[in-house]
């Protein structure tokens, strides 16, 4: 089904630009053209279709749904909604406070916020088209697990002790009087759904296209210019220390899932073990310094440091487990 994009790239690069398929430049450019065009087309089509379906889902409804849920189910649903709810990272602080002041435990809120950048329709789509369904399923399961386990852990150690005082007070009040009025499920006409889906497509596409170009560009550079076998020889055995090293490098780097997935593809096809790749990529996506600075508004340093260490351990563990269990996936 995706062959058409290969042919298009063949024609553009080898025919029109007259580059040889044997040169590094030719290979890199071919990879770049094929992947960007494919990703752009898929993005537009799929974002539109998915937006049609979820036009009536928003963070307010998720909050009302999660408020008053039993904890056990809460983590699972928090992470699940994190994956499917449209949500811009610039709203993470208002969402955090909105959930908190509805009395939702910090762990469930964090399950939502941790899963949200890792899994979304754009990420899933890219994974499917670049790395296949098996890898996609693994990625989704791992992402959900990080959210659920992370949330559970934060509540287990009573992380709410280390919120900034106004946020802690909001949580306290929210527990006592749950806001009664549930946001009414809007019934939308098909025309309204179309309108929403069109806006959503333009908006998401407008936000992610640069990332696709950067990500695919980096991937192409890896493909074309890192000598074949270099990664495999040096990092291919999944030596234990490579995983924490990848996470430590990945956390301060910031990318969203859209930018990092083409790089993942390139790293994997170049022979980097799957665990190391997952550890590196998930840590770039889930954690970044700008986000930690934002979170400082609602959390004390101690909780931030804890969150940082928790993610570091989680991604390292994931890397080790996958390197150990799935030498070849």
């Amino acid at each position: 089904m995706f062959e058409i994009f290969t042919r298009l790239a063949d024609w553009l690069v080898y025919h029109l630009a007259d580059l040889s398929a044997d040169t590094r430049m030719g290979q890199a450019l071919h990879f770049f053209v094929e992947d960007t065009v494919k990703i752009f087309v898929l993005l537009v089509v799929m974002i539109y279709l998915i937006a049609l379906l979820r036009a009536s889902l928003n963070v307010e409804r998720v909050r009302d749904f999660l408020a008053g849920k039993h904890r056990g189910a809460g983590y699972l649903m928090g992470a699940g909604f994190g994956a499917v709810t449209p949500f811009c990272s610039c709203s993470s602080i208002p969402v955090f406070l909105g959930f908190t002041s509805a009395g939702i435990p910090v762990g469930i809120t964090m399950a939502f916020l941790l899963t949200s950048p890792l899994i979304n329709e754009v990420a899933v789509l890219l994974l499917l088209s670049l790395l296949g369904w098996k890898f996609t399923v693994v990625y989704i399961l791992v992402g959900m697990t990080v959210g659920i386990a992370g949330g559970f852990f934060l509540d287990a150690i009573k992380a709410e002790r280390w919120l900034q005082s106004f946020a802690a007070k909001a949580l306290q009040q929210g527990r006592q009087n749950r806001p009664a009025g549930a946001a009414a499920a809007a019934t939308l006409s098909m025309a309204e759904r179309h309108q929403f889906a069109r806006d959503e497509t333009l908006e998401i596409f407008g936000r992610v296209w640069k990332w696709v170009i950067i990500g695919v560009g980096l991937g192409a550079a890896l493909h074309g210019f890192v000598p074949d076998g270099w990664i495999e020889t040096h990092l291919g055995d999944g030596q234990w220390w490579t995983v924490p090293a990848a996470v430590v490098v990945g956390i301060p780097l910031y990318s969203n899932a859209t930018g990092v997935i083409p790089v993942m593809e390139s790293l994997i096809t170049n022979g980097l073990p799957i665990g190391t790749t997952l550890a590196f990529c998930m840590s770039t996506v889930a954690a970044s310094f700008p986000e930690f600075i934002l979170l400082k508004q609602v959390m004390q340093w101690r909780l931030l440091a804890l969150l940082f260490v928790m993610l570091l351990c989680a991604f390292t563990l994931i890397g080790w487990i996958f390197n150990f269990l799935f030498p070849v996936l």
Partner: protein
Amino acid sequence: MKNIKVLGSGCTKCTKTAELIEKLARELGVEATVQKETDVQVIMAYGVMRTPAVVIDEELVHSGSIPTQTEVTAWLQS
């Protein structure tokens, strides 16, 4: 005289929202003060979770996106 607040943590969309409202207010000749509110505690007090949000005379009228010209015009003229 309308007292308009744009709530948001300083993202580009919030700036654009404020600019749009100021521009339309000038064009329509409506007297209004437009103020950007970035304090998370204030945003929380309005119960807003998706920014940018617009508050006119202490009433929340919009949340979650840059409003359209038509919407802003309607608020200004009401």
